[in-house]
């Protein structure tokens, strides 16, 4: 069977990660930034699954489960924080959330 070479998986993982990073760095909407973080997590998951499959080691897949658990928890907490901020400042634009400075 002709398998897709590993480079393809890794490239798409790297691409997804870069999109995530860029999104985190340049987008202003907190929800979108949040989604970009999820994207980064998932790109890492993809890389983990890839290696797990190619090396025949199930540890990588177990790892992914942990990442997904953490991501779920993080999504719950993160969304709660965003809602709390919105209630206080009536905005989710992170440029305006800058009270931690000199």
């Amino acid at each position, binding site marked *: 069977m002709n398998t897709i070479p590993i480079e393809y998986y890794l490239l798409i993982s790297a691409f997804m990660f870069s999109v995530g990073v860029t999104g985190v760095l340049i987008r202003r909407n907190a929800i979108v930034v949040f989604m970009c973080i999820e994207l980064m997590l998932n790109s890492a998951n993809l890389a983990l699954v890839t290696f797990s499959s190619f090396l025949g080691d199930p540890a990588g897949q177990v790892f992914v489960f942990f990442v997904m658990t953490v991501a779920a928890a993080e999504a719950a907490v993160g969304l709660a924080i965003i809602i709390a901020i919105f209630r206080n400042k009536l905005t989710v634009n992170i440029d305006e959330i800058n009270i*931690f*400075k*000199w």
Partner: protein
Amino acid sequence: MIELIYLTILLPLLGFVINGFFGKKIGNEKVIGLIGSSTVGISFVISLLALIETINLPVEQRTNVVELFTWMSVGSLNISFSYLVDQLSLVMALIVTGVGFLIHVYSIGYMHGDKGFYRFFAYMNLFIFAMMNLVLGDNFVVLFLGWEGVGLCSYLLIGYYYDQKFEKGTVAQAAKKAFIVNRIGDFGFLLGMFLIFETFNSLNFLEVFSQAKHLTGAETTFGFIALFLFIGATGKSAQIPLFVWLPDAMAGPTPVSALIHAATMVTAGVYMVARASIIFASAPVILAVVAVIGLFTAVFAATIGLVQTDIKKVLAYSTVSQLGYMFLAAGVGAFSAAIFHVMTHAFFKALLFLGAGSVIHSMHHQQDIMHYGGLKKYMPVTFLTFIIAAFAISGFPGLSGFFSKDEILWFSYANGNFVYWLLGALTAVLTAFYMFRLVSLTFFGEERFSHEKYHPHESPKVMTVPLIILAVLSVIGGWIGIPEVFSGEHGNVFHNWLAPIFLDAELKLAYYGAHSHTEELILMAISVSAALLSMYGAFKIYTQRREIAEKFALKFKKAYKVLLNKYYVDELYEAAVIQPIQKSSEKFLWKIADNKLIDGVVNGTAVVITSFSSVIKKMQTGVAQFYALIMMAGIAAILFWIILSL
């Protein structure tokens, strides 16, 4: 009872805890006084039983160590809380608890109605606790614990009337002076201890002394150890040059002066020198220094005592002078004579102070003997006991002071030289003179006080009974140390009792003076008759012919003024030590070192950091994405570096 000796230390501590923490709640003077005195009284009984038990032991088993627990153990330093029960420490323990008990009982009457009654008894018990640690400790560290403890109690009790004025300053200043001067001595003592540990690798008395006995040729080391220890002793026992605190210590209540500044604490230095006799004996040069300092202090203080008019001041200088005697004895290698004088002095000087307290008590705290006179008929018991003590301290034949003083004078001649004896005898003459000046001006002659203002009266029984007991002791206390010349073949009982303790030191000093008893008797006759003459002279002058004294003072106006101002020693120290320290502290340490140097360094550091952070704080924009960008850039840089280095 020997193994229960720790109770003599714990009981006063218990008394301190009860009176100190609950005294205010108890409130009842009788209960507080009972607790305070009975703890010391029981300690005395235990010490007495331990003494009897020790007497019944054969001589070579009379040194017992009661170990309680290990205090600290660091490397080769092993300090345990243990108590040494031997001939010397038992004598001291009996003096401390016995005289201490009488003074505690007396204080119940003397301090009656004082607002700090419970505080007084708490401090007194704490003092006994510390003093017992000092005399019973079996190593230098426990001794030092007691040494510092008695210093603290002395400070607390001198400053007991902390809100009152005293002479030119305040009571609090007098207390502070005592504490600071003592600290100077303690510094020497600490250095001595360090040097002992360095040399012998132990601080335990028995170990150190048995090593010192065999160590030969280390005279310089011994010299330094002895010198440092002696500096400590000069501070605690008020010798030249550190005696200045003792006269000021009279700011405390009179029972305190009797207990701490006459009978017990100030003799701690003598005890320590006697305890470390083998070390001092190994350093003959320092031993001579001890003798000379003691001799000079004795003469020096006695001359000041001649002209003072405050009843307690006279007694204070007398104490300094008598302590000088004890060091003279130690300095000529007559350690048991020194301890003997510690004991008899504790009796008669405590009695003198308590008698003075009784007079002061009935004269509404008037202390100037020029405002006394003719008190004999108002307070017969005080008068009688006081005059017995005066006879004892002046060396009237048969009384306790005679035996101890004479033994010291004899040894200062036999082991020392004629000059020692001459100056010692001179001090005895001066002592007899100022004591009878004091007695005459206080109890005889015309009444120089107004009857409207003062109503002299005899003190209550609780005060006079201790006086009577001490008077009896002042008479018979010396009979256990009757010298060989009178007692014949038995020799000196007290000397024989202590002999095993000082045997090594005496062997090392090797004084084998071939002096005959005739010589001793002649010298004794000279000094005693001179003292008797001086007593009679003082009595005659100050009861009938006061104008002679006044004429004398006028004729030698300058000398009189110097004596009245105590040789200006306080002023000298003020100008030579205190002022330079204060001035340099203000001009240099405060205004330059502290304000400019230290503050400059501290503030300068802060300024540098502020200016640096005012630049880099601009990095902190508060925009989370900016932080994330920097983080990413950092991660990228690290990744590049890792990849490139592969």
